[in-house]
């Protein structure tokens, strides 16, 4: 597998860990769905920096690729990425969860540029993405739709209704990214309600599926630059991830799905995240 350049790896690591630190700073203002934000942040960073056609100065650009966060509670990852991309001023992040904020606990397209659709009620984003993808097909447009799902979210029946429809309608302009961090609100997904085997299920519904390490920027970049995997088939990328990746006291712990942070933990957390950033940079020789 070709390696991405040291410069690109350094840039992506720095951006995703800057995002993690910003999420911790937001945690000062209220409860945060930190676990899923951290597990999906690396691929969201690659999408916005290297893959998607988009323009922060023109969020309504007609030909942009669409990004739908079906697992809407992971929106902290999206907020910090959009702020970094220049969709809005970073100061907006520090209004998190306040009355009339533009960055509420679940995203609202009416108040924040860059948000395509209001998600939060699980199981809505994939069918909405299907509707957008089917429009592009019908109109002969070449934008793509990227949709991030959670593995716990795959308990919703509407996910499977839309998976079936995407396969049936041959939506090869639809890319679903399934963040398999293996934890949900009440514990391990395999204990609460096993959604496995996710690969086989999506294959059976007519998708082309690849599974990668969701924290390996080489694998992420390589996979996202090879879509669609097969003509006439929707693509699914299952990213194996660690919930709360980068904050070692929260990693792989379901209690960090939704975390009420004590204020003294923020500075400690930022130091820990910074330490992981330096380790990741060292691995790529940066």
């Amino acid at each position, binding site marked *: 597998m070709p390696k991405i350049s040291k410069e690109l790896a350094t840039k992506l690591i720095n951006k995703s860990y800057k995002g993690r630190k910003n999420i911790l700073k937001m945690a000062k203002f209220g409860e945060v769905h930190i676990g899923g934000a951290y597990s999906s942040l690396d691929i969201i960073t690659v999408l916005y920096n290297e893959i998607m056609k988009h323009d922060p100065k023109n969020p309504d650009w007609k030909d942009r690729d669409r990004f739908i966060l079906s697992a809407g509670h992971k929106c902290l990852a999206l907020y910090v990425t959009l702020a970094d991309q220049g969709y809005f001023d970073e100061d907006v992040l520090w209004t998190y969860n306040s009355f009339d904020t533009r960055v509420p606990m679940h995203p609202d397209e009416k108040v924040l540029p860059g948000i395509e659709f209001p998600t939060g009620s699980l199981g*809505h984003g994939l069918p909405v993405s*299907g509707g957008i993808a089917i429009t592009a097909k019908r109109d002969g447009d070449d934008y793509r739709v990227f949709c991030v799902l959670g593995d716990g979210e795959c308990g919703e029946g509407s996910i499977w*209704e839309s998976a079936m429809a995407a396969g049936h309608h041959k939506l090869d302009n639809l890319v679903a990214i399934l963040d398999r961090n293996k934890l949900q609100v009440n514990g391990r997904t395999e204990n609460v309600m096993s959604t496995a085997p996710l690969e086989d299920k999506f294959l059976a519904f007519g998708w082309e599926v690849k599974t990668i390490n969701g924290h390996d920027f080489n694998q992420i970049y390589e996979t996202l630059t090879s879509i669609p995997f097969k003509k006439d088939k929707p693509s699914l990328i299952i990213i194996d991830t660690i919930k709360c990746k980068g904050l070692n006291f929260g990693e792989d712990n379901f209690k960090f799905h939704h975390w009420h942070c004590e204020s003294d933990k923020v500075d400690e957390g930022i130091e820990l995240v910074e330490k992981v950033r330096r380790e990741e940079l060292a691995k790529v020789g940066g």
Partner: protein
Amino acid sequence: MIPNEIKKILSDSNEKIATRKAYGEKLAELGEVNNDIVVLDCDLSKSTKTNIFAKKFPGRFFNFGVAESNMMSVAAGLATMGKIPFASTFGVFASKRAADQVSISVAYPKLGVKICATHTGISVGEDGATHQAIEDVAIMRSIPNIKVISPSDGTETSRVIEKIIDIEGPCYVRLCRGSSPLIFNQNYKFELGKGTRIMEGNKATIISAGFTTHIALNAAKKLMGGGIEVDFINMSSIKPIDEDLLIDSAKKTGLVITVEDHNIIGGLGSAVCEVLSNNSPTRVIRLGVKDKFGASGTADELIKAYGFDEESIISTVKENIV
């Protein structure tokens, strides 16, 4: 009495048509002039009559199989791209199975999805309780941003379908399986938020919408023949509702009888009570399904058994006028 300007919009034909059929025909007609119209259905297009559109414009028709939740969110996705999606299925599925998608995918982002549900009320008939939507108006009315329209005949259905193309945001249009006589002729114009006072009198006010309107209108005409003059209002626009007309009529007559093929909890009768209790407290008697599930039978048999047939309306008025 029937005012002269109203006589000009009333049909004198004996033709009967189901509102679902008028919908399907109008949709296929509008498809020719508006390329943005797309139609979604869930394996029921023969019954919802979207098959007429599908045959003419196969590239703009999508069948999503037996999966209503997905269909509603897909319709939302199409609407974000500037399409005008008409999403059709039976009322029970549009309002109950897909309620979350209608609320969060469609109504919350104020997307212009036109939900046109057929087979509503117990007038569905033989299919029985599982296929008779008696809660759909209550559900849809309580979701913010959604407009709720229950057209009373084929003519009004055509006008409503034309109108909702230009209405911003989501609409729920309540259509019926069974044929019913034309009430209006081609001069009739539909206006959102406006009712039509078809008859004028001062003994009572009868208000109806949807399938029951022709039944209630016949009752009002018989009452008039017997010397009991009533206000008769067609209130197909249930949300928004014509508050001024309601208050004006209730103040005049002091007695309101609502008639609907829907649970009396949450439907047209409730909407009328909400307006009057706040503005002009008046006695309101709600005729309709009295908080129980439907059953199997012919539409006529069921409506009689559930107590909102012509005779029940007439006797209710006679027993309660002051």
